[in-house]
């Protein structure tokens, strides 16, 4: 079942564009962005491996179950609230950003709030589904969208408009000291592993993470393409001027053959799917965290009937999104995304270390147990 793990890794990796990760890195391109990226690769990979291999010590258990089993309720419940709100905020940022993108590039005549309402309605429906159904959707959509990703990337890499010199120039700033903002943003590329905190329920008990080399490889590739391709298209200075940098970059490409001329449309369809997927998963995770705080909660992977609680929670998420979109404008959304990335970075590190410690204790316990068993056996002999 490794593929499901990698799918969930992949969609988060691709959504980094809607999360303004390239913007933050591009802003810091002369002030430590490149070195932060380089540093983020080993660090991010390490987090992924530590967290994932620790989670396999708890087969079939998600983070709420693991924590509630070991700590008192009053201590864990606030933690769940914090985790839920971080996931919720992340999805809201992406959703609001994308509704603005649609308004800018697709339907300039429709207001972005109307589009946002439809997106919210879709996400409410999708996030209330069961965890198992979401995994199937994930697989389907990744497989459907993978050709689009490959196409847009290939188009970008092989066009003659790409200015490799500009990229060289920016890459030469590798010696500048890294800073926290860009480092946190760059590690976001690897943050798909956190899906395991809920999806671990679905994974089989004998799950072992194979093909670990994929993680640094794909992460590096995604990070560098999402930052350097816009630089290649718009030049070292011009790249700074756009908020939705990748939409503009996709619009700089042209398809000579076929019905559609502008790559932008393919790109937008792709990111519409990814945004919906990301928000669905984000809300689903937040919902599961919130549900776990109730005493009578039983984790259910594939319930026959959708509980009304799901609708209530996701409905209120939708309401929060609407309020957010009214209160916050585009610029603020961008700034909040930057702060969110930093906060998320710290929670990620803390939770990875925490779960690692718990897994370590479990392992040492089982080891000491087996030692005792061996002793008993030898004594009985």
């Amino acid at each position, binding site marked *: 079942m490794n593929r499901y793990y990698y799918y969930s890794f992949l969609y988060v990796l691709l959504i980094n564009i809607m999360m303004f990760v390239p913007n933050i890195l591009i802003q810091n391109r002369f002030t430590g962005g490149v070195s932060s990226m380089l540093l983020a690769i080993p660090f991010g990979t390490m987090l992924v491996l530590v967290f994932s291999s620790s989670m396999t010590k708890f087969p079939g258990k998600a983070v709420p179950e693991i924590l509630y089993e070991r700590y008192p309720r009053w201590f864990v419940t606030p933690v769940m609230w914090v985790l839920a709100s971080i996931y919720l905020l992340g999805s809201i940022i992406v959703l609001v950003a994308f509704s603005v993108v649609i308004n800018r590039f697709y339907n300039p005549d429709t207001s972005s709030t109307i589009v946002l309402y439809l997106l919210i309605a*879709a996400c409410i429906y999708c996030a209330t*589904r069961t965890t*198992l159904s979401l995994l199937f959707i994930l697989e389907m959509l990744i497989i459907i969208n993978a050709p689009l990703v490959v196409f847009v990337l290939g188009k970008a890499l092989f066009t003659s408009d790409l200015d490799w010199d500009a990229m060289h120039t920016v890459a030469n700033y590798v010696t500048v000291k890294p800073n926290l903002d860009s480092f946190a943003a760059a590690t976001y590329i690897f943050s798909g592993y956190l899906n395991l905190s809920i999806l671990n329920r679905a994974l089989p008990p004998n799950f072992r993470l194979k093909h670990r080399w994929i993680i640094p490889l794909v992460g590096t590739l995604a990070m560098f393409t999402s930052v350097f391709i816009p630089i290649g298209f718009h030049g070292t200075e011009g790249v700074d001027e756009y908020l939705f940098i990748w939409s503009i970059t996709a619009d700089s490409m042209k398809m000579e053959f076929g019905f559609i001329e502008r790559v932008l449309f393919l790109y937008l369809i792709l990111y519409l799917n990814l945004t919906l997927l990301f928000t669905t998963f984000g809300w689903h995770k937040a919902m599961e965290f919130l549900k776990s705080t109730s005493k009578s909660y039983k984790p259910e992977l594939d319930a026959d009937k959708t509980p009304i609680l799901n609708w209530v929670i996701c409905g209120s998420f939708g309401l929060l999104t609407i309020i957010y979109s009214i209160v916050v404008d585009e610029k603020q959304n961008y700034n909040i995304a930057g702060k969110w990335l930093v906060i998320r970075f710290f929670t990620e590190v803390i939770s990875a270390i925490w779960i690692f410690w718990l897994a370590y204790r479990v392992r040492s316990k089982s080891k000491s147990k087996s030692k005792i068993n061996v002793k008993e056996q030898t004594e009985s002999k």
Partner: protein
Amino acid sequence: MINRILTMFAEAKDLITKRLRNDDTYIEIAYIDSLCDESKISEAIFVPFSRNQKPFQEIVEFSSEFKPVHEMTEWTSSLLRGYVLVHINGKYYSYDASRNIRIETQTTQVESSIQGPQLALTEDLKDGLNLIRNRYPEPSLAVEERTLGTVSKTRIAILFDNRKVNSKVLKNVQKKLLEINSDMLHSAGEVVRELVGNRKQLFPTTLISERPDRISNSIAQGKIVILMHGSMFGIILPVTFFDLMNSMDDQYEGFWMSRTLLIMRYFSVLLTVTLPAMYISIVSYNPELFRVQLAFSIAGSRSAVPYPSFIEVLVMLFMIEMLVEASVRLPRYIGSTGTTVGGLILGQAAQQAGLVSSIMIIVTSVVAITNFVIPNNAMAFAIRFLKYPLILLAVFYGITGVCIGMFIYFVYLSSIRSFGVPYFRLHGKLTRSAEGDLGQVSST
């Protein structure tokens, strides 16, 4: 016995009761004339009884065709199935003399295949079992018989391979069969509706098939098959979306072309669902999506059309749906007239009159033809419906709406379970390896 039977039944002319006596025995028989084959009765009962070469009681006791009846409650039900009741020396026996009227042609009509077997199930349960037993000669094939419907008392048989069947699914199906509480059940479709329970389910979660080869293949895959007396169709369950998109020919023909056809089939599903909606959203929202020349030619062909694109689409779709609907129900002789008239009106006149654009005619015909590609009838109906909500979304949101609608369809498909089995799940090689499957820990 006869007096009791006469009190049980309403006055019926075809209920025959006789008291017979020969040299040493006295018997009473009862049967319903219209359900029985008289020659069978005289061969088995009247002739040996009157000749009396052997005591009739011995014949009855030795022959396996006479089955002892122990309960009085069984009398009516066996009489109503075309059995003859025999009362001899205080014991009761039933003899099957039923006469079934059925269509004799056994070639496939609904799911035709080019070079596959041409034999179809018949309306007789026994023949159906015979066909499947012949194709699946395994001792592990289990056959359970039941009756469904409080009035119609339709006999059904549940077939599955004992070793391969998923016991969870089997229990689920058996439970649901017991829960069926309906008077009359005549077609496989009714049984399916009762089984699935959710009346508003859009996609079929069972496969109704008339092909014995398909049924035996499914049994070999561990699926459960329900055969019905009086229906030419068997019900296969649980099925996935991909089973319903498969035709039998895919397994009989060469690898490359059948795979290519399969891919084209999925592509045509995509077309039939999205094309009308895409037409609306491209013409009315994003004409710049297409390259300039194409955008111009679409706009040019629409120049004579006085109303917005969605009215055009709705008019044309209404026409084509009516055409399809009419040609299904019409007798063969008139059918061709209908299609010619409809085709001419849709194809030429409507466009020349400036009611619709010529591109719209292409869109309509593509939508209709691609829908016919879907091999399963129930699936084709479900997919035929899918385009309408998308049209609504396209009217208000353009391409964004269509994409979001498609996303919701995918989510809906993934959340369907066919008797507990995921409906829309890709099975890669990984699932078959030693590695565990999803959801093992919580289900146990």
